[in-house]
């Protein structure tokens, strides 16, 4: 930008004016360190105005920061500006000698250039809605930058999915715009979009899947700032991938001047999480519960649990049922007392306090011909879950060569290696320590009396016999299994910048990204995971899975390149017309090779395996014991784009952009491969209008508006039936025939998905930027959204891709930045952002037989509940029907039994009406507050983030037809209805009993088929929708409290140190959740497998030389 400004000014100089001229010279330096600011711009201002006087030529500072310019004697004031610094206006009317202009770095201020990744835009011309975060302002303790964004920017909602180290949070920019496609924003590193940033859909059952986003490979210390592009005007240039917003990362680079060395080190302690919040039963309570269940008619899994084993071994079940505990023999009672006396503290068995550290060293500098930036980092985080952690080594090298005035070349390399260690979970899920800690019985012991591992007989997937081959012990399992992700990543960027003539620039950018990832799980021969597999391969003659360990490896080899060519023209005509035009093309290709291999009978000493001798082809070609699998993916994209911007008199700016995105789609006519996207936008800088009062108190007032169209297409669907060649089929021994499998039905009706967006906003700055406020309103309407829709199985498929909905997001974003106190020694900054997003689904393709409510007219994350009306006299849940009368589910839905299974007499349409809308599970309100208090070298800062207004349906405390008494649960179950506890708060456990005595809500007694009530809950799981389990998921989290002290230079300069800062930071120390009783964190209420979000205290040291 400064180069352009210079060109502009030289241009103007030629037509510059006349008459009496005098010379003004000086030096421009940084206020803090006195370093010269090379290229700082100096311009003359008009009389009595802050407008640039274009009739006078400007200049820019040279390598030493010096400038010299001629000014008409009529010019009284000049303005000196430099990117990232506050401009300074100097009255030169009385000045004679050389000036020394000290510019103050402007961290708080939105600096003057907005980086879009397709060229830098001067702030004064930005028509779009963008938000920028200087990384120094974010909380600092995080492995990856995505974790630092929570609460920092309006309209950017960031929510942790798990407390696992390096786990990527869910980021939504202005709400959800897609129903089934990716909802993650596009990440751009120094102009090149990153691959590998879409999060897998981490639901309950796969939250343990090891995954490392490309973002986690970038060291936050290397990042200068982050720009979030929110509206269509900003994102249209990125094409189809930008529908969820764009996050542009700009990394640090060398600055002109001497070598600077910077070291920072951090040491963090994370506390052992407490399980108290989970309200789990203690041994006494659990034994009593099992005794009570053994006496009741509740039959599900009646032989599970230690109590059942004890009484069945003694043959005293009927004694217990008849006479209660008193009827048990004394030997049995003693055994029960032993159980009661054990209270294993699972928190201390499975979790630990942990120490993490982080080191970073950078070296940077520059000369006239080149600048450079090198850094190295080491990060090692240990989670409070034993054996879980993340490590990273980083190296970054960035150099910029300036060959001539016209030609510049930049080379950047980002290399990193990282490792995530976690636990191995089997299909049964209970080897997840988080889940286990919630489900293990308090009387379960880790070790038997002889020191061996005590088997947990209640955690077996199947088989409940003692001495079973599948005995499970969590500690043994954790010691004998491992699951590790290793990733090596390299990003290389090349930038070429050629000034062809004045105003015309050719830019080329080539980005390469390599990712090599291996996820390796290993289980020892004695581990449950290994025994489980061997059991699966058991034949009459023993298991054909060889003895020994099991090693499974999934290697992913990914590569992408992006090649951009752009031609940019900028000109100013007749002093008041500024025009910028850019044309470009982009070619992108990515490929991915995924290779799975498995080794059985693995010996980790000799590194050898044993072959599997499959008993027959069915096993050999089956899916249970695959040895090798490969997947190949390749995609190519071609895009053409253009942007233009026209500014009149510096006050009115209009912008437009258009982009054609083409991509490979198999089985589709080439003419349908291109997707056009465009945007138009405008900016009015009201503050610069001549009729505005030139007052000190108003520094900025501008209005923005934009409209754009974004789009997307499902690349996996074709109008024709597309099959895949599979391994040759062998139906009969010796046969081998070609085999084409079809995984999805064709769809001739699929159309582009389109999103139209409108954005209106204004920015205002008062009192010399001491108070800045901006507000944006947006409305995004998406039509023909493509989604995976579940099909009835009679179609032969599980899912199909169709255009099935339209929806809109509209919202308001407010940003406030204030500096209430600013003196020489004191400074107090406050930043506040608030966002409200309302998502509405307008149209949904619904199957006529859908029984769950249709979300039309509701947000995409709508939570629908069955309005719970308390319990009837027998402890069965009552539900309000549409007339607000409390009724039983079997009456509500006219349940009848057809043979053993329940059927619903109520029509699907009527059943949908029974549900009530209870809110949305995506927070409509989000916001953040950060404040900073500085006094001399001291700095106290605080940052908090909030997500409010959303609801979540938690899992029932216990399944009312299938509570497994062998597992622990929260103490809510003690408050259930039982004949002895008729005032119980929660529903009874329902047993499959026919013809039981039944009391109707009106008090009359009748005999009826209780099975209908059982069938309704057991077959259809209606208990999971009861409003009884609705929670307000809103929360405010104090993300960071930080106290820092910078030693005064008077002391440290003696040691030749330029800066030295010590800081103590507490992360996630407090969270205030509106309703998360019984859970670790409000964010993870839905998922009992998620790791707790760690509370961390970090000591950090930062030294600059």
């Amino acid at each position: 930008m400064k180069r352009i400004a210079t060109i502009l000014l030289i241009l103007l100089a030629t037509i510059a004016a006349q008459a009496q001229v005098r010379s003004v010279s000086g030096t421009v330096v940084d206020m803090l360190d006195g370093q010269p600011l090379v290229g700082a711009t100096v311009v003359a201002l008009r009389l009595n105005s802050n407008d640039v006087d274009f009739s006078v030529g400007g200049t820019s500072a040279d390598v030493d920061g010096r400038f010299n310019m001629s000014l008409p004697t009529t010019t009284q004031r000049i303005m000196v500006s430099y990117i990232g610094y506050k401009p300074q206006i100097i009255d030169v009317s009385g000045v004679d000698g050389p000036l020394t202009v000290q510019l103050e770095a402007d961290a708080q201020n939105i600096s003057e250039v907005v980086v879009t990744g397709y060229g830098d835009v001067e702030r004064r011309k930005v028509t779009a809605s963008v938000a920028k975060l200087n990384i120094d302002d974010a909380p600092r303790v995080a492995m990856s930058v995505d974790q630092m964004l929570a609460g920092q920017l309006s309209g950017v909602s960031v929510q942790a999915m798990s407390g696992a180290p390096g786990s990527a949070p869910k980021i939504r920019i202005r709400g959800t715009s897609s129903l089934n496609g990716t909802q993650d924003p596009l990440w751009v590193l120094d102009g090149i979009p990153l691959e590998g940033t879409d999060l897998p859909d981490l639901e309950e059952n796969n939250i343990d899947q090891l995954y490392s986003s490309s973002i986690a490979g970038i060291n936050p210390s290397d990042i200068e700032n982050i720009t979030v592009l929110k509206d269509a005007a900003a994102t249209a240039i990125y094409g189809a991938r930008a529908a969820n917003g764009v996050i542009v990362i700009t990394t640090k680079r060398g600055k002109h001047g001497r070598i600077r060395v910077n070291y920072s080190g951090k040491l963090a302690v994370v506390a052992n999480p407490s399980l108290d919040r989970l309200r789990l039963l203690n041994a006494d309570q659990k034994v009593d519960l099992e005794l009570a269940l053994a006496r009741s008619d509740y039959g599900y899994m009646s032989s599970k649990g230690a109590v059942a084993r004890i009484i069945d071994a003694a043959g005293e079940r009927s004694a217990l049922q008849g006479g209660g505990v008193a009827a048990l023999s004394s030997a049995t009672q003693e055994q029960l007392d032993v159980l009661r006396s054990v209270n294993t503290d699972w928190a201390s068995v499975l979790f630990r306090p942990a120490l993490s550290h982080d080191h970073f060293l950078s070296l940077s500098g520059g000369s006239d011909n080149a600048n450079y930036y090198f850094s190295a980092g080491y990060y090692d985080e240990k989670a409070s879950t034993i054996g879980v952690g993340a490590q990273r080594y980083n190296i970054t090298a960035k150099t910029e060569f300036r060959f001539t005035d016209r030609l510049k070349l930049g080379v950047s390399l980002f290399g990193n290696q990282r490792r995530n260690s976690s636990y191995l979970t089997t299909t049964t899920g209970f080897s997840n320590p988080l889940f286990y800690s919630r489900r293990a019985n308090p009387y379960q012991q880790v070790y038997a009396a002889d020191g061996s591992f005590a088997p947990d007989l209640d955690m077996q997937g199947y088989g409940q016999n003692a001495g079973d081959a599948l005995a499970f012990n969590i500690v043994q399992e954790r010691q004998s299994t491992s699951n590790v992700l290793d990733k090596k990543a390299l990003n290389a960027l090349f930038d070429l910048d050629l000034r062809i003539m004045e105003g015309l620039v050719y830019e080329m950018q080539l980005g390469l990204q390599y990712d090599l990832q291996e996820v390796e799980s290993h289980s020892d021969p004695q581990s449950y995971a290994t025994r489980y597999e061997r059991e699966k391969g058991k034949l009459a003659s023993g298991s054909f899975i060889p003895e020994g360990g099991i090693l499974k490896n999934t290697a992913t080899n990914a590569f992408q390149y992006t090649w951009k060519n752009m031609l940019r023209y900028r000109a100013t005509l007749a002093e008041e017309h500024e025009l910028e035009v850019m044309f470009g093309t982009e070619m992108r290709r990515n490929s991915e090779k995924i290779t799975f291999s498995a080794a059985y009978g693995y010996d980790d000493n000799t590194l050898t395996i044993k072959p599997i001798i499959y008993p027959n082809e069915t096993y050999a070609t089956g899916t249970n014991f695959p040895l090798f699998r490969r997947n190949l993916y390749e995609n190519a994209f071609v895009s053409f784009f253009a942007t233009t911007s026209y500014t009149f008199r510096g006050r009115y700016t209009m912008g437009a952009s258009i982009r054609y995105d083409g991509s490979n789609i198999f089985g589709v006519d080439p003419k349908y491969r291109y997707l056009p996207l465009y945007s138009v936008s405008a900016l009015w800088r009201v503050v610069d209008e001549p009729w505005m009062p030139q007052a000190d108190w108003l520094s900025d007032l501008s209005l923005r508006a934009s409209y754009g169209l974004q789009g997307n297409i499902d690349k996996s669907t074709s109008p024709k039936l597309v099959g895949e060649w599979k391994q040759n089929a062998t139906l009969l021994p010796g046969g081998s025939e070609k085999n084409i499998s079809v995984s999805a039905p064709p769809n001739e009706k699929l159309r582009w998905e389109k999103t139209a967006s409108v954005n209106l906003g204004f920015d205002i700055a008062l009192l010399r930027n001491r108070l800045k406020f901006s507000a944006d309103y947006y409305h995004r309407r998406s039509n023909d959204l493509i989604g995976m829709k579940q099909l009835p199985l009679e179609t032969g498929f599980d899912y199909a891709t169709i255009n099935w909905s339209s929806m809109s997001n509209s919202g308001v974003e407010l940003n406030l930045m204030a500096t209430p106190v600013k003196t020489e020694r004191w400074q107090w900054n406050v930043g506040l952002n608030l966002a409200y997003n309302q998502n509405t689904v307008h149209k949904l393709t619904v199957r006529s037989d859908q029984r769950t409510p249709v979300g039309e007219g509701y947000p995409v994350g709508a939570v629908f509940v069955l309005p719970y009306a308390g319990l009837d006299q027998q402890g069965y849940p009552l539900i309000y029907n549409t007339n607000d009368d409390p009724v039983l589910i079997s009456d509500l839905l006219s349940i009848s039994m057809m043979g053993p299974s329940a059927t619903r007499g109520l029509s699907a349409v009527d059943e949908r009406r029974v549900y009530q809308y209870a809110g949305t599970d995506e927070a409509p309100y989000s916001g953040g507050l950060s404040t900073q208090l500085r006094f001399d070298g001291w700095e106290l800062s605080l940052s908090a983030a909030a997500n409010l207004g959303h609801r979540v349906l938690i899992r029932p405390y216990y399944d009312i037809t299938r509570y497994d008494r062998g597992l622990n649960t929260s103490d809510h179950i003690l408050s259930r209805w039982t004949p002895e506890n008729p005032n119980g708060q929660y529903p009874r456990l329902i047993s499959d009993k026919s013809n039981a005595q039944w009391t109707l809500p009106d008090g009359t007694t009748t005999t009826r088929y209780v099975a209908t009530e059982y069938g309704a809950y057991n077959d259809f799981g209606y208990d999971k929708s009861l409003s009884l389990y609705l929670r307000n998921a809103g929360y405010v989290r104090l993300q960071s409290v930080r106290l820092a002290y910078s030693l005064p230079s008077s002391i440290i300069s003696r040691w030749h140190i330029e800066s030295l800062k010590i800081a103590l930071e507490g992360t996630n120390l407090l969270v205030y959740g509106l309703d998360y009783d019984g859970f670790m964190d409000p964010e993870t209420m839905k998922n009992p497998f998620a790791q707790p979000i760690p509370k961390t205290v970090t000591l950090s040291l930062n030294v600059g030389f």
Partner: protein
Amino acid sequence: MGLAACESFLDIKPVGSVIPENEEQYRALLTNAYSRFPTDRGLAMFRSDEVQLNAADSYSEASYLDIYTWNDNAPSDYTASFQWKDYYHITYLANHIIEELADADGLTPAMEQMVGEAYCLRAYAHFTLVCLFAPPYADSTLNAPAVPLSMNTDTETTLSRSTVAQVYASVEADIASAMQYLNAPRWTGTLAYRWSVQAAWAFRSRLYLYMARWNEAIGAAQQALALGGTLLDLNRNRAVAPAHHTSPECIQALDFVITADYLKAARPSGDIMALFDPTGDLRFMNLTVRETAPGEYVIAADGSHAYRTTFRVGELYLSMAEAHVRLGNTAAARDTLLTLKRNRLDAATFATDSTRMATIDAQEQLLDEVLNERARELAFQGHRWFDLRRTSQQQLIHRYNGAIHRLNRADARYTIPIPKEAREGNANL
């Protein structure tokens, strides 16, 4: 930049993807349909009186106990599922081939054969479904809800249950359509899993047997037998079981009845063992059961594809014998039955047995003879559960770990409920 260059840049053919449009590719699609055919005849075996569940294997217990004990109400999460969706995936592929090819011009004979096979596959998928999930065919059940009929590739319509009569009519019509296209008289060797003219006749014979259309059952069986295949005389050759796909009796070997998993879980029941003459019946040892240790028996099939079986000559003889009995042709019935027995029993035993048989004249008694012979001859070949359903619906008792489970006479659980996952996806079920 030339647009053509862009086109070639964007022209990526995903590795392994294909839009089937020639003979080889349609055949590969059809092979896939065959290879997906569910193993539910073997799974239903656990509900019959042929097997008892192997208590020594916890994996088997988890997978099959609830099926073995007819606990359809609250099965554990690990219980093996009847493969509802796979039948309809097969009918989808069959429908696709029928829609693309049935009316196309210039079909090669090989493609015509494929259309015929597609009709048969669709019919056999529907037939297996109706036998599993609907009441047996009888005058009283004609209008009972059965299973949805998938007759085209439309995935947008939600199907409802057709009636028992409708499903059987559709199966009958599809076999008739198949006959128009099929031109391979008979398959052997590694292709014996495919539909042929002979297999279609055998299918028709079984269909009519199940529909109690006795004359037509006999006629179809005779048509099938005319196309080849002979009874295997076990007095001469016991190298291979009659149910093995390489046996001369094999007509079609599609159903994978005894998978390795089922083999692990199932042990021959006392009931079925008691039906055999352990020495005189040459089928018994090593061809029906094997002794692994003194007094311990397993099913003789080895859990491999080699024992796939759908139709074979032995079954046709039994169907004819049964139809003759039902029609009152006791002499013909006895002769047909004895023809089979002559090939199954050693000479001395056969002599005794034929003498005994000569005295049996009562229709009911003779029917019992035929049905018991059917139980022996077709043991562990995926017939017993279906034969029990359509005949006596007798009381069954299964013991497991000391507990006794009963399926009462004419119990509603003789019809398996439509799987939960299917009912969740389609409320019309």
